[in-house]
């Protein structure tokens, strides 16, 4: 009886004779470029072109360079810019914290039933339309809503939450939590659980183990997750309008108003560019502070 290896060896030359090239998992540069071309075209057409056009419009339409001085001279636009950025930072911090807790439980929970319920809770905001989602939050934080019932029950008393920046933050956090959970789930799933056991076996409390092992290992992923959440939050439009009652203006509302109500395209495009540049700069600085070297090291 021929051994397995012999069988294979005998089969090999016949393969060669038929001219089959040995299969390789790598693709040549040219082939790779051809395969990527549609994607590159999409990227150019739908990302780069509009951005460049936006930048050019902001410099050429209506008042030219004055569009920018108008944006900065306008107190309410400046306020909208601060509001957008500060609210987004707060949203990011809360979202990543909640997302991390949820993702960690999703990774560690043993019961499949509990896991399914958790996933359902995480995915729910994804399945809801924007308006439904915001309406749910309105019901939750309104004067007669669940949250106020709760506050009243514990003796704090009903608070004005709806139409404050608090409501806007709650609303955006609710929309953003799935993004944080998705990105952090991958991060946590990639961390060997026995590292925590090892830490505990050496005398670390649960909290110490999380702080000294999990947190540093998850940090790069958490920063990436925060960057994602921040970048999306900055562009929120409907939630600030519906939950902020006009008093927590986001840049998107200002831009929208300048396009649709005041017909000032130059101002709108300049405001868009300012928002884009400032948000990108903040992201850049934040990533810088965390340290590229640390990111790379932990990822490798």
């Amino acid at each position, binding site marked *: 009886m021929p051994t397995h290896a012999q069988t294979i060896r005998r089969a090999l030359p016949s393969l060669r004779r038929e001219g089959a090239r040995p299969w390789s998992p790598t693709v040549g540069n040219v082939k790779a470029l051809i395969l990527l071309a549609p994607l590159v075209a999409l990227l150019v057409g739908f990302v780069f072109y509009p951005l460049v056009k936006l930048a050019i419009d902001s410099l050429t339409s209506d008042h030219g360079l004055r569009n920018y001085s108008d944006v900065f001279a306008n107190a309410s636009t400046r306020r909208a810019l601060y509001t957008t950025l500060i609210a987004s930072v707060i949203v990011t911090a809360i979202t990543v914290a909640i997302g991390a807790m949820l993702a960690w439980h999703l990774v560690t929970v043993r019961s499949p039933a509990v896991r399914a319920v958790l996933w359902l809770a995480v995915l729910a905001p994804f399945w809801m339309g924007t308006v439904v989602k915001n309406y749910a939050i309105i019901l939750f934080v309104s004067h007669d809503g669940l949250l106020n019932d709760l506050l009243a029950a514990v003796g704090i008393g009903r608070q004005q939450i*709806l139409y404050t920046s608090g409501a806007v933050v709650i609303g955006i956090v609710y929309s953003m939590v799935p993004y944080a959970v998705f990105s952090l789930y991958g991060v946590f799933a990639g961390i060997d659980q026995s590292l925590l056991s090892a830490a505990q076996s050496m005398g670390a409390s649960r909290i110490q183990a999380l702080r000294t092992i999990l947190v540093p290992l998850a940090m790069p992923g958490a920063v990436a997750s925060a960057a994602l959440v921040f970048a999306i939050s900055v562009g929120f*439009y409907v939630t600030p309008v519906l939950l902020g009652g006009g008093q927590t*203006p986001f840049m998107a509302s200002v831009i929208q108003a300048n396009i*649709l109500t005041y*017909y000032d395209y130059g101002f709108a495009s300049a405001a868009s560019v300012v928002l884009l540049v400032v948000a990108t700069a903040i992201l850049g600085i934040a990533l810088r502070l965390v340290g590229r070297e640390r990111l790379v090291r932990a990822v490798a």
Partner: protein
Amino acid sequence: MGQLCGRSRMLRAGLCLAAASCALVVSACGSSSGGGGSSKGGSGEALVVGDWGGAFDQGTKQFYADPFAAAGGASVKFDDASDTQVARIEAQQRSHSVTWDLVDSISAADAYLLDRKGYLVHLPAAMKTQLKKTLGPTKVTDFGFTMSNLAYVIVCNMDRMKTCPSSIPEFFDVQRFPQSRALPSGAPIYTMTMATVAGGTPASATSTIAPNLPPAFAALGKLRPKVKAFWESADQSEQMMRSGEVDMALMWSGRAWRLKDNGMNIQINLDGGAYEPAIWAVIKGSKHVDESLKFMQWIADHPEAQARWAAALDYSVPSPKAMKLLPKAKAIRLADYPPNFRKLAVPNFQWYAEPKNAAAMNQQWQNYVRG
């Protein structure tokens, strides 16, 4: 359904924003392709109306366009451009490829703005005179007449208060009425017109004299602590009242009636409101100006058609005769119902169409809202 949906400015605002940016891109492409479309002209062709889509288009087709065609007029097509009319007209004009002949019920403020840019056809003098006679002098402008008009009205939740402010000065009186309020956040000209009345200008004079802003903003400033929220969409204004988040609101009349019809205990005061007309106009560059004017003339001359249209869509129409043809219960809800119309403050759109005036008002208003 269809009630007020088409015209609510901020409704589905996210979509509108997207649509508007599309319009910008279209304009960019259009200029390079150099006006192709409508260079043929001729009388047998259909008129194209930039319109609001949905039930609104259907009403306009059923009660105006179809009878007009049946009477020997041109056929009419509708281009759904809900809330992006100005951007679309702007794009067509810039690219010199005008595809619309008419625009239906564009907000008066927008219409004046477009007219300043020279995008609207002026009515022949004879036609203008004749229309003023048929519809009333306040319903006709140099470039068109009003249609699907609304009023911003004072609405009170009567579960929360014994009496509702019955005039603009009362609405601004926070001593007598300390309850919370909601104001519209956009389209400041209407709220500002009411604020000028609170600041001392008689309601009957607002349409003709330049608004006196300092006392108006002073009145608004006193009101500010009681303004709990600014609504962006008509849906939101309803929701704020319904949920009891605010006790009073300045909101569109149609939405207010809907709240009442749904059983909410509210009072609607048309005595203390602002008139918000919309305008039919012919677009400069149209290849069918004469036929388009004929269509407008036909609408103005047919009060029964206007009455049917108003009954179907719950928007007000300019013709006083149409008001008489409507059942009273319906008519008294509409802004053009003469007893209502007399009490409404009409904004000075001509003043607002001057960009530096608009900029000054808008700027201060935005600071007021976001401040």
